[in-house]
């Protein structure tokens, strides 16, 4: 029988008390549910972060286990922030950031605008366009290296076919002038769909009646585009820009497979530079300070991102 004493007692007592008897309180459940997540993040994100901060004030080297690290204060920070080579890595990162974002916004928005014309079969073609961004950046980067080979690569062949140049006359990955652009091209190929999807969400959030009202006011299509479409999509575009900015500031896998930072250090973005310091030269303390500098930058950008997010949410 289901009609046990406990059940009968529960039925007889008022709701609030009944819940207390039969199960845990809401407060306890809330903490039980949140605790594992917080614990995991504390163990694998926050504790390491605090450790990194501590290491960044020392001259610790992870490959020399028997030597006690020395406390050297802000020396690591001072050295990094006055190093003109690291400044050059930052500029390489800036070049990559600026052009990938500019191209992705331009192409992504145009595509979203075209897809929003709701032609037949648009969702299938959208999916096909989205495919590159779902793939593993390292494997993709490795394969683009093959496409970029001088003489035998498909990319050089196609460029040669349209420009009449000799396909072995230029090396996308080997030349100091072209290598920074070769990584921009691959990143644009891969991530334009992301900007496109966000813009599409923005375009679809514009209610029809606004256009209908503009039509009643006899505003031209061009005017509607600049006074309705652009301002309404702008918050979404800001989100996409910030998101891609943060992601590309951290860029590692795609570029390390494509160029490995070369030739020279023309495509050595900050993450690749940091990896060299930390896992090839084993200057752990120094690399920790470097990591903190990158982290604070990303955290700052993330705060702006969340602010932008709230703005979109209010709509």
């Amino acid at each position: 029988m289901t009609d046990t004493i406990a059940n009968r007692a529960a039925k007889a007592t008022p709701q609030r008390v009944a819940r207390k008897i039969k199960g845990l309180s809401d407060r306890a459940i809330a903490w039980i549910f949140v605790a594992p997540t917080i614990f995991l993040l504390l163990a694998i994100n926050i504790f390491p972060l605090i450790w990194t901060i501590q290491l960044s004030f020392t001259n610790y080297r992870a490959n020399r286990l028997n030597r006690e690290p020395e406390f050297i204060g802000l020396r690591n920070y001072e050295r990094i922030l006055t190093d003109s080579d690291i400044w050059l890595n930052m500029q390489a990162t800036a070049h990559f950031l600026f052009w990938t974002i500019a191209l992705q916004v331009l192409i992504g928005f145009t595509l979203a605008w075209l897809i929003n014309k709701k032609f037949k079969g648009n969702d299938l073609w959208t999916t096909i366009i989205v495919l590159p961004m779902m793939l593993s950046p390292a494997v993709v980067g490795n394969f683009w290296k093959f496409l970029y080979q001088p003489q035998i690569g498909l990319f050089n062949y196609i460029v040669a076919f349209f420009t009449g140049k000799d396909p072995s006359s230029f090396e996308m990955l080997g030349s100091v002038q072209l290598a920074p652009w070769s990584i921009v091209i691959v990143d644009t190929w891969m991530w334009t769909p992301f900007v496109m999807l966000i813009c599409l969400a923005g375009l679809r959030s514009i209610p029809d009646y606004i256009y209908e009202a503009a039509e009643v006011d006899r505003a031209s299509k061009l005017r509607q585009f600049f006074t309705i479409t652009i301002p309404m999509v702008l918050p979404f575009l800001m989100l996409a820009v910030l998101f891609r900015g943060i992601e590309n500031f951290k860029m590692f896998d795609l570029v390390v497979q494509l160029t490995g930072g070369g030739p020279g250090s023309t495509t050595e973005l900050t993450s690749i530079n940091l990896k060299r310091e930390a896992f090839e030269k084993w200057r752990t303390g120094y690399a920790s300070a470097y990591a903190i500098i990158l982290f604070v930058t990303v955290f700052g950008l993330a705060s702006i991102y969340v602010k932008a997010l709230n703005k979109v949410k209010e709509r």
Partner: protein
Amino acid sequence: MRTFLTGLMRLRRGPWEMLATIIIALGVFMLMQPFVLWAFTYSFITTLVGTVMFIVVSHFPEGE
């Protein structure tokens, strides 16, 4: 501009967040600009100040 300044005076969230955002953006720009080395040198402290400020001021009350 007036409301921005009074917002700052009354410790309202909106304008202070805006100010912190500008400082962070300035710091990030200084970090990656190709013009002067000293700006690169002081970029980190700028971003850090902006970020800490953002965390603090996001707990200020919303403006009316």
